[in-house]
């Protein structure tokens, strides 16, 4: 019964999405006050409620482990802890798609409920676009991946007790990225709405901005967490492999970063109108493309993920429909949008334009590198593209962008002179040169890490310069957000460059009692003992490690064998200090009783993820700042209206 309620709610929601679409179309034809057009907002709100019910029903069948529902029987088990029963609801294809439409419909309900800045017609067109996008996903769910499908005979027990997937990080990681993707779908709907009604205004950018910021924060967190997870779990010592699944989350992030900055130009200065719309379309395309690459398994990935080629082609169809449609609309309408305000090249806008162009170029580089194996496969040539391509080619655009990032925030809007900020620029350049000399000449670091270290230091200092001469208490929260996000990027860059420049590795075969060293660490393999867990056995290598002759620490990396399902994993051990991490992995034994041990000392590597968290924190602060300003403006507008009414009454 519960599953049927969920399914019925889903069908009703799909019907409301049709109504929402019809409402928007009616608004364009017959005007915003026609009967059907007036139903657009209520339809969106109701749709959000219905999908929330459907998702709640899915959680319910998982919570009570209703084994007559196919999805539950396939992915859950009565013996699982409740938290993993619930997270199992979206830890599979059908459930994750339902989660996607749930977030999407709730976002639609939210804008329908509270967004009043834009003209009604634009809002209706926006909601219609939102309904149209949602409709594709409803069709996908209801026609090809129904999460509420019943089994003819209830199963006796569920199949899903894979202990590897009972991990809270894995339970939270995909939804984080989905929130990001959905946020970009809202930005896309706003862009379509504004384009259709020829209403590309600063208000449009202000309405869209919180959604971009929110999506961007979730994507940042998702990428940061995913990178740490790969670093820790794969046991290869790397944190980023330029793997298609990783690129699938990086590309929307790059597009969202560009969109964020161009929307802020549009909101503050009414320039870059067409460009902002274009980026809105591109950012959503990248999230659809990311979903397609991940879901279809068309490209090989080191990240294990549920894969299904047929569903991939459905997503590809949706991708072509939305993006093709949006680009067509863009081509037809972009010419009718009038030019925005002018600005000189030495201005905040000028710097942001350069930033946008550089980000787009990096996006193009990553996109081409990711899709290249698919292209060559059409000619029956199999290639793979990795760091030797991505690192240097993206660096060509990353470093100019970082240089602009150091200067841009110092400039004024509209028109400024270089001489006004010459002191700050001189300081930044001096820092950069000193760092280049120290690391290049004295420590002989290779080119890319050398540039990384030097730019990170210069940008790290430069990102605080916009605060100079200001009373810190009166700096708006959104400006703090910018400063912290830029600083976070410098911190992450420092971590990456330091990891690449100063890491040391030791690969050794050790007998029990033998010693070795890696960087400043002394390592002794004390004993290798078998251990057993609930569903695995392992060889655990007990090692004593000490940093620079300090107090010894005992660690126990393992090589684990699971039996259900049969699987072998390396359990690496990380010893974190303020200045870096020791990374230890144990392999197999050779015939003479020695054990393979792989050790890395990675100075400052943790800064990569702390930097990512700072970037996300910056985004959160900016979001809080923007929403607060908006609320204040609303209150002021309401008070003003009330006063005017009073004045009228008096007179």
């Amino acid at each position: 019964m519960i599953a049927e309620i969920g399914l019925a709610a889903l069908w009703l929601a799909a019907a409301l999405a049709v109504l929402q679409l019809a409402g928007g179309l009616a608004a364009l034809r017959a005007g915003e006050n026609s009967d059907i057009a007036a139903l657009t907002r209520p339809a969106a709100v109701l749709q959000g409620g219905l999908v929330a019910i459907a998702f709640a029903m899915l959680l319910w069948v998982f919570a009570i482990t209703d084994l007559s529902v196919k999805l539950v029987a396939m992915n859950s088990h009565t013996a699982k802890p409740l938290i993993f029963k619930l997270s199992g609801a979206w830890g599979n294809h059908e459930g994750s798609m339902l989660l996607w439409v749930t977030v999407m419909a709730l976002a639609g309900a939210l804008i329908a409920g509270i967004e009043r800045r834009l003209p009604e017609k634009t809002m209706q067109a926006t909601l219609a676009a939102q309904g149209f996008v949602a409709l594709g996903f409803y069709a996908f769910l209801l026609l090809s991946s129904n999460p509420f499908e019943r089994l003819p005979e209830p199963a006796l027990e569920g199949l899903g007790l894979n202990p590897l997937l009972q991990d809270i990080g894995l339970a939270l990681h995909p939804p984080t990225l989905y929130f990001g993707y959905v946020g970009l779908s809202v930005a896309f709907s706003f862009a379509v709405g504004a384009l259709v009604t020829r209403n590309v205004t600063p208000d449009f950018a202000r309405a869209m901005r919180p959604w971009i910021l929110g999506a961007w924060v979730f994507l940042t967190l998702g990428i940061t967490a995913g990178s740490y997870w790969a670093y820790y779990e794969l046991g290869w010592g790397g944190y980023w492999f330029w793997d298609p699944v990783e690129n699938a989350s990086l590309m929307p992030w790059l597009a969202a970063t560009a969109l964020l900055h161009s929307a802020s130009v549009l909101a503050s200065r009414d320039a870059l109108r067409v460009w902002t719309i274009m980026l809105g379309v591109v950012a959503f395309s990248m999230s659809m493309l990311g979903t397609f690459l991940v879901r279809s398994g068309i490209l090989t990935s080191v990240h294990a993920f549920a894969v299904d080629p047929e569903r991939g082609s459905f997503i590809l169809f949706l991708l072509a429909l939305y993006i093709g449609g949006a680009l067509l609309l863009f081509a037809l309408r972009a010419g009718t949008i009038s030019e925005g305000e002018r600005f000189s090249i030495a201005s905040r806008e000028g710097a942001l334009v350069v930033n946008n162009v550089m980000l787009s170029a990096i996006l193009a580089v990553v996109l081409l590198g990711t899709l290249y194996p698919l292209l060559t496969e059409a000619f029956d040539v199999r290639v793979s593209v990795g760091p030797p391509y991505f690192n240097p080619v993206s660096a060509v655009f990353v470093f100019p962008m970082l240089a602009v990032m150091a200067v841009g925030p110092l400039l004024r809007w509209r028109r400024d002179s270089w001489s006004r900020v010459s002191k700050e620029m001189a300081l930044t350049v001096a820092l950069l040169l000193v760092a280049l000399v120290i690391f290049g000449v004295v420590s002989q670091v290779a080119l890319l890490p050398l540039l990384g270290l030097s730019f990170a230091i210069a940008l790290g200092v430069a990102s605080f310069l916009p605060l100079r001469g200001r009373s810190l208490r009166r700096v708006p929260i959104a400006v703090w957000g910018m400063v912290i996000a830029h600083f976070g990027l410098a911190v992450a860059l420092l971590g990456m460059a330091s990891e690449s420049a100063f890491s040391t590795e030791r690969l050794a075969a050790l007998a029990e009692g033998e010693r070795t060293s890696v960087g400043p660490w002394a390592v002794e393999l004390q004993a290798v003992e078998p251990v057993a867990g609930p569903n695995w056995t392992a060889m655990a290598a007990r090692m004593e490690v000490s940093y620079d002759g300090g107090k010894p620490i005992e660690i126990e990396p393992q090589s684990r064998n699971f039996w259900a399902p049969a699987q072998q994993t390396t359990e690496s051990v990380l010893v974190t200090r303020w200045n870096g991490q020791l990374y230890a992995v144990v392999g197999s034994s050779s015939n003479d009783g020695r054990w393979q041990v792989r050790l890395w000392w990675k100075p400052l590597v943790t800064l990569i993820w702390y930097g990512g968290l700072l970037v996300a924190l910056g985004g959160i602060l900016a979001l809080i700042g923007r929403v607060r300003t908006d609320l204040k403006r609303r209150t002021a507008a309401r008070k003003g209206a009330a006063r005017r009414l009073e004045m009228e009454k008096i007179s």
Partner: protein
Amino acid sequence: MKAKHQRLVLVLLAIVALVGAALLAVYALRNQASYFYLPEQMQADPPAVGQAVRLGGMVAPGSLETLPDGITVTFTVTGREASAIPVRYAGILPDLFVEGSGVVAEGRLAADGTFEADNLLAKHDENYVPRELQDMSEHQAAEMAEETTVGLE
């Protein structure tokens, strides 16, 4: 500068940067993409010494040997026909790397004809098979690889 001119300049700037990025990318891809070789291809038409490529095939039974240093292993990768390429790898063998199963080795050919692998990709876990191994249905290595990766598709 008029607004219209400014827009034109911006559009041109963006186009130049993007086309530049694309050209640079295509140029770099031709040089940096790592090509995939089967053992027989590598024997018939070997890549330049030192060029980063990948080699995929089956680990010949009985060929896996650990050198005295305890960390370097050598084995032979075989394909169809009697082609066999010797491979040397220093490092921890991937999970589920066994003789008689499929492997993709990333690395380069050394002057002595040995393939120096930096990285080995075997059946990583239940959900991951190197893509190249999925397609090698014609020859023996693939049959073996399929047997060891049964039930994955």
